[in-house]
């Protein structure tokens, strides 16, 4: 063992510098290459922002020219916008809390954290990077909104919008890190999850009640917030960040490493565009069961599959909340003034909500796909396993789509028909859920497509859309119903037949693809 300490040990900042210099000494990329990459990224982001801003501006003009709404629109646009902002902010907090937010890679946990160097100095770089990344993301989201969502954007309105976005992002980072330093790392995720759920469900409930009563919801007249309010918000966000920085030394190695492992999995799956793995990384641990289920009603192998899938759905930390949000999203879009007058937009709201339901309902199938030996435990053919595994998605999407349809119908005099229309779409989304859960890994060997925003790997895209494609195709009769002013018994029948046909085709295809030994 080395002799006693006789020189001053490196402090946290010096350890970071030392590691960075040693790493940079053998970096294979040149400064020119890095500048070139940065320029390419900037151009891609700029083109993407311009396309998004243009799309929003076009949407705004189409809303202004739109005719009668599909259902009664009773929610003022500012109310829905506020709910959307709350939802986005809560989503950011959930992701931050799952990632730590401050974390240490396994290498840093093994070689930095055991050093007697001040932990604050070691972790400050991580906090700076995190704040910069979330702030940049907020700017990227706010820019198209600032230019596209306002009729006549001015320099002041754009800068104000960007300022609020950055302040919110910094406050989100500062607040979650501060709670992390006080060992309340899991609290913000649960609270933000509840806020996100409420932000989606509350407007749907309010909108439905208002539609039932035939009275639009009044919105308080809010002007542009004064500059001092923005300055105060920015100061508060900065104060949170400073407090968070001061508490970095209180973070313990175990939690830093746990966050680092999650962040590593999430960033790896993001880089490889593996959304399925990304979901697994961010999902967090299930609720621990109070006791094991006795599974007494299970008599046959297929019932065991269904019982296991139901247990996975019930124990998931987020699934039930996701299903509630999924049912609410189409209602909020359809009930919001402006949005509800454009049938394609209402249809897109349905796709977004029911796609979320399909993702939540397919979790057990996704997990089983990752561990194929589980299915081999049962005396079931591959086709029978697929059919059994479809039961829970059918039930979940059936409830979500029927509830959405029912709520859409309130105030139209066709509640039952709307509910049946929703129910009729459900088999397609259940099939989408299974197809998405069992899709192959992204194929990077396929051809690439050159676009103004950079090169897109078409092979990967073709894999990623598996699942959603069936849901979208299966919902085409719904688009016809929305476009023609509402559902008719004939359209409901067409929707049901088309949806069942697609679902049967998917189940047969998946049953053939998944041989018992696969």
């Amino acid at each position: 063992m080395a002799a006693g300490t006789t020189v001053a040990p490196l402090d946290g900042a010096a350890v970071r510098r030392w590691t960075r210099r040693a790493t940079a000494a053998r970096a294979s990329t040149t400064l020119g290459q890095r500048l070139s990459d940065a320029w390419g990224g900037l151009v891609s982001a700029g083109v993407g922002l311009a396309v998004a801003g243009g799309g929003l501006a076009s949407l705004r003009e189409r809303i202004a020219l739109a005719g009668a709404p599909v259902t009664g629109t009773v929610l003022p646009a500012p109310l829905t916008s506020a709910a959307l902002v709350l939802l986005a902010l809560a989503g950011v907090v959930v992701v931050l809390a799952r990632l730590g937010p401050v974390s240490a890679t396994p290498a840093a946990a093994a070689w930095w954290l055991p050093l007697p160097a001040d932990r604050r100095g070691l972790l400050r770089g991580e906090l700076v990077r995190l704040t910069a990344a979330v702030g940049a993301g907020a700017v990227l989201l706010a820019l198209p909104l600032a230019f596209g969502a306002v009729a006549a954007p001015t320099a002041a309105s754009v800068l104000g919008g960007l300022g609020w976005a950055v302040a919110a992002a910094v406050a989100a980072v500062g607040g979650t890190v501060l709670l992390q330093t006080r060992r309340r790392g899991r609290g913000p995720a649960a609270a933000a999850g509840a806020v996100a759920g409420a932000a989606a469900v509350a407007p749907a409930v309010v909108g439905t009640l208002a539609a039932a009563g035939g009275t639009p919801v009044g919105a308080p007249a809010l002007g542009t917030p004064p500059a001092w309010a923005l300055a105060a918000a920015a100061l508060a966000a900065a104060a949170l960040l400073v407090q968070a920085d001061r508490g970095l030394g209180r973070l313990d190695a175990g939690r830093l490493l746990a966050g680092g492992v999650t962040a590593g999995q999430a960033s790896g799956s993001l880089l490889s565009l593996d959304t399925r793995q990304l979901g697994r990384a961010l999902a967090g641990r299930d609720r621990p069961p109070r006791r094991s289920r006795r599974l007494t009603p299970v008599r046959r192998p297929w019932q065991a599959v269904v019982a296991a899938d139901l247990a996975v759905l019930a124990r998931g930390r987020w699934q039930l909340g996701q299903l509630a949000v999924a049912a609410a999203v189409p209602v909020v879009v359809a009930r919001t003034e402006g949005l509800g007058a454009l049938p394609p937009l209402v249809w897109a709201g349905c796709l977004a909500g029911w796609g979320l339901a399909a993702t939540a309902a397919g979790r057990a199938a996704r997990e089983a796909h990752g561990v194929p030996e589980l299915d081999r435990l049962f005396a079931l053919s591959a086709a029978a396993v697929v059919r059994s595994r479809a039961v829970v998605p059918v039930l979940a999407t059936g409830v979500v789509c029927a509830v959405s349809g029912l709520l859409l119908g309130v105030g139209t005099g066709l509640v039952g028909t709307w509910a049946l229309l929703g129910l009729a779409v459900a088999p397609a989304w259940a099939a989408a859920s299974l197809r998405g859960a069992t899709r192959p890994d992204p194929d990077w060997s396929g051809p690439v497509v050159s676009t103004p925003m950079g090169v897109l790997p078409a092979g990967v895209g073709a894999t990623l859309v598996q699942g959603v494609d069936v849901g979208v195709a299966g919902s085409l009769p719904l688009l016809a119903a929305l476009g023609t002013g509402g559902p008719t018994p004939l359209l409901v029948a067409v929707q049901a037949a088309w949806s069942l046909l697609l679902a049967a085709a998917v189940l047969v295809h998946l049953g053939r693809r998944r041989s018992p030994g696969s």
Partner: protein
Amino acid sequence: MRNPPGSDLLVAGGLAVGHGAAPVCAPVDLRLSAGRALAVVGPNGSGKSTLLRTLVGLLEPLAGTVTLAGASVDERSAAFRRDVAAVLDDDSFFVSLTGREHLLLTARGHGVAAAEEVVAAEIEAFGLAERADALPSALSSGQRRRLALAAAFVRPARLLVLDEPERRLDAGMRTRLAARLGGLRDAGTAVLFASHDAELVGTVADEVLVVDDDACRVLAPAEAAGRIAEL
């Protein structure tokens, strides 16, 4: 800092350990003094690694207390990290730092004078001279294990904690490691290690903590011979 001989350095009382609410083994009571070595033995899954992680502050105890030199164990304290060197099941390295640079980082981070000489000596002692300037990805699994162990020797510590240090080492290296650990113990460092290697336990340990579901007991090596033989 050298340990005062004979004084209790690490003390655990009624310590319950686990990852959830349920303990993985019976409560643990132990005292480890400077210049003594305690081996932790038990079957796979008995809770040895969880116990070590709790003793070095990486997991919170479910119940009971752990103190180092009279103060509650707190891995966030720089003084604690200065006193305790631990090599657990970590096999993580900075991808762009060589083996030598990892050891230099550790030595300089602990303020070791003549860090380069100390590191060179440990590289030699752990048989890494030929591969010290290679990146971790170019090292074998056993060489990476040697590198991780060497990091515990390039710095001063009052307590050395190792989780199955014999893992992935060849027979010759295991023998040399046993001699190094014995030397450290004799020089006044407290050594705590979990192991399945009967020879390592027999050579280094003054006492043996047998970890089990029913009871965790500290025994003399002779008393624990039966359990050690099962290793």
